[in-house]
């Protein structure tokens, strides 16, 4: 049986990774994710985990070391945030192209500049198109669960792709929660040993990460796109098995009080927890509003979004990142794409807020919801709007 205990979520992320018995951990500490590699280093040095802990000199090396080890057939884990992720950027696409199932805990933090160590989603959005599977946790329990699920999904013979588990910096990484930790035997039963599709071994020589000339690059890229789109099946299968084993249900788009809802708010990450309280307050006033929480960012769950939005009059999509000079927030952009072909679709309002650690309170969700309903004529043609920014 597992154990229920209170712990800082970053430490819990390290504990969850350790339960998966990685062979190699390579990470470089960076705020707000420092406690993940730090705690893993302790776990290894105390002899509780038989893993090679590589103290690399940078994030570029951290991901490179993970890929080398993964290529040799090891189960690997890394963790980073913000500028650290950008330092990995050169390697990100190579990891997915080489189909190496690296698992990363990504403590989401705003990108510089101005220099900021606090939470938003600009880091992962900058690496959105690198071919990694992306999961978003909204609380500590999901962080533990998703990290364990991530190894199963990434290493599945039908997937073989790297995966990042996103946990909001500080809002999650530095918060102490009471969580259920599965036992080692439960994790062992859920997560079989990694069977690499090929490995660097002198007895079976092969080359990985070779040159791809124009004659092959397009075919290789299409194969990679099909792989991530198809990973959805495995993600759903693993989530169904997780529910069976641990009783906690995971869906690409989680619904909260959507029964009879005519309007809804959509969130991704930890803000969904605060938004639930706002939904409770609005429901108490008799307003039929619900909450949709996006858990799967890549591959984007188009069909689930369409299903969830069916029958809604309006949908308020909240983004913690901006695509400069583009369509506003990245989540709203995908949601609009999902619904473009639908005849019966809700009006979509997109607010960008909570950037660089700006606090988001329950009242803010209520205010944003009321602002959307008031249908501010002056801005009605706007694709999106910043909420809570000083100055008109």
């Amino acid at each position: 049986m597992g154990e229920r205990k209170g712990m800082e979520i970053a430490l819990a992320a390290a504990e969850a990774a350790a339960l998966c018995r990685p062979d190699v951990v390579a990470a470089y500490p960076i705020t707000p994710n420092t406690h993940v590699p730090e705690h893993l280093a302790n776990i290894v040095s105390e002899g509780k985990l038989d893993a090679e802990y590589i103290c690399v000199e940078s994030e570029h090396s951290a991901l490179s070391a993970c890929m080398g080890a993964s290529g040799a057939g090891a189960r690997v884990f890394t963790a980073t945030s913000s500028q650290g992720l950008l330092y990995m950027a050169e390697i990100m696409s190579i990891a997915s192209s080489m189909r190496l199932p690296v698992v990363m805990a990504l403590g989401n933090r705003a990108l510089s500049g101005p220099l900021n160590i606090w939470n938003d989603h600009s880091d992962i959005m900058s690496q959105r198109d690198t071919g990694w599977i992306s999961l978003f946790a909204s609380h500590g329990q999901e962080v533990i669960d998703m990290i364990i699920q991530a190894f199963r999904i990434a290493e599945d013979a039908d997937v073989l792709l790297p995966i990042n588990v996103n946990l909001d910096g500080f809002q999650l990484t530095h918060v102490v929660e009471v969580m259920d930790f599965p036992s080692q035997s439960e994790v062992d039963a859920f997560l079989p040993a990694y069977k690499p599709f090929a490995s660097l071994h002198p007895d079976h020589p092969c080359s990985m990460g070779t040159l791809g000339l124009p004659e092959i690059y397009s075919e290789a890229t299409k194969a990679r796109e099909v792989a991530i789109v198809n990973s959805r099946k495995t993600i759903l299968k693993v989530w169904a098995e997780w529910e069976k084993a641990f009783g906690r249900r995971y869906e690409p788009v989680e619904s909260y009080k959507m029964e009879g809802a005519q309007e809804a708010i959509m969130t991704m990450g930890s803000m969904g927890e605060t938004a639930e309280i706002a939904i409770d307050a609005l429901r108490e006033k008799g307003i039929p509003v619900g909450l949709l929480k996006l858990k799967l960012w890549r591959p984007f769950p188009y069909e689930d979004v369409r299903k969830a939005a069916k029958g809604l009059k309006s949908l308020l999509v909240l983004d913690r990142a901006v695509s400069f000079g583009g369509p506003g927030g990245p989540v709203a952009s995908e949601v609009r794409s999902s619904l473009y072909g639908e005849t019966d679709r809700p009006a979509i309002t997109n607010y960008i807020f909570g950037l660089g650690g700006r606090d988001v309170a329950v009242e803010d969700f209520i205010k944003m919801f009321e602002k959307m309903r008031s249908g501010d004529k002056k801005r009605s043609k706007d694709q999106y709007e910043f909420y809570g920014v000083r100055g008109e």
Partner: protein
Amino acid sequence: MKSKKWPEDWQDVNIGCIVSNPGSAREYHTGGWRAQRPICDNEKCIKCGVCYIFCPEGCIIERKDGFFEANLDYCKGCGICAHECWPFAIKMVEEG
């Protein structure tokens, strides 16, 4: 390039584009990239082997008679051998 076979369709691409037949890079003749070829005047050549050492492709071989020769299947025509040849025995000449 004569025997090089690309995977026909995207479905045929190996997972992660791995190459499982060792030494298959040999089948790709980079000599096709060449615009200039090295020509060695063996009257001037002192058999020092500097061209052999500096060739980034490793395509220069030492013949039995001690002179050096570039394998034109792989020589990209970079001209480093000609640049490094201090007795000025190697000249780059236009292809075609």
